């Protein structure tokens, strides 16, 4: 059995914010009718977090449920727990129209930490998203474009931000974030 590793094996960069590959996460795509009781119960049982509202993320500390589209959720769980959760979800939803797929190795996750204004600024350089504190904050989940690749963002706390992108472009994404967080490149937009 091969040893699972994350795309950049925990690479880290210290700029005016710290960018770090957060390592392995279990990730499960769940598609179905998000308003149905079956999906709500299955997600709650699998992660302990409720089905989030539109463009929101629920849960905490490595156990998140993210709203990807009107019929799709991304469950972020512990890497080792993902196969079991996938099987449980499939069993719980067996009677209803759904799709469950373990996509743990398909994506890379980065964590930005540092000053609250700094990490907003680093993202604002790369994404067409209003990063003003009133417009985007903890609890929200935003899929968008980061330079030339699709990415998604959420803020677990005021002073940390997670970026998720496809594994195949993890190096590109890391380089982008390094550039955006380069010391001396602060714009001071939000401070």
């Amino acid at each position, binding site marked *: 059995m091969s040893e699972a590793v994350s795309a950049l094996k925990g690479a880290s960069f210290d700029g005016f914010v710290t960018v770090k590959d957060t390592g392995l996460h279990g990730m499960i795509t769940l598609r179905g009718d998000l308003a149905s009781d079956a999906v709500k119960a299955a997600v709650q049982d699998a992660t302990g977090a409720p089905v989030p509202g539109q*463009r929101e993320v629920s849960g905490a500390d490595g156990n998140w449920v993210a709203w*990807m589209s*009107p019929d799709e959720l991304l469950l972020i769980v512990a890497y080792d727990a993902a196969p079991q959760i996938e099987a449980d979800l499939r069993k719980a939803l067996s009677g209803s129209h759904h799709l469950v797929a373990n996509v743990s190795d398909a994506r890379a996750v980065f964590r930005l930490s540092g000053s609250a204004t700094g990490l907003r600024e680093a993202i604002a350089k790369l994404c*067409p998203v209003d990063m003003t504190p009133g417009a985007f904050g903890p609890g929200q989940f*935003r*899929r*968008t474009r980061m330079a030339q690749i699709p990415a998604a963002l959420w803020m677990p706390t005021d002073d940390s931000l997670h970026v998720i992108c496809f594994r195949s472009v993890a190096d590109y994404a890391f380089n982008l974030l390094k550039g955006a967080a380069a010391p001396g490149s602060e714009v001071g937009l939000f401070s």
Partner: protein
Amino acid sequence: MLILTCPCCGVTAEETEFHGGGEAHVTRFGPGSSEDDFHGYLFEKVNPKGVHFERWRHNNGCGKWFHAARCTVTLEVFGTYSAQTTEPPQDIKDKISAKRPGWSWREFA
């Protein structure tokens, strides 16, 4: 720059988060149709100056298709609406009429 609001996920973003999908409300003619109909379906697009209806996909976001009504001259977006329809909804048509009285586009006005 074109600012679109995705009716599926509610995100308002500039056009680079989306991808244009060509003219909207095209009637498809497939196998069994006349050559004229098939030719029209494939090649006869309107390319107007002014009010235009297009299909767009939120490809860097929720990934869903939707329709947009916009002005090709000013890039003003009159509104976006569900992809699951064969004609613009009345409220979109009313909004266009308020701003571009007397407009017409294909069979709609």
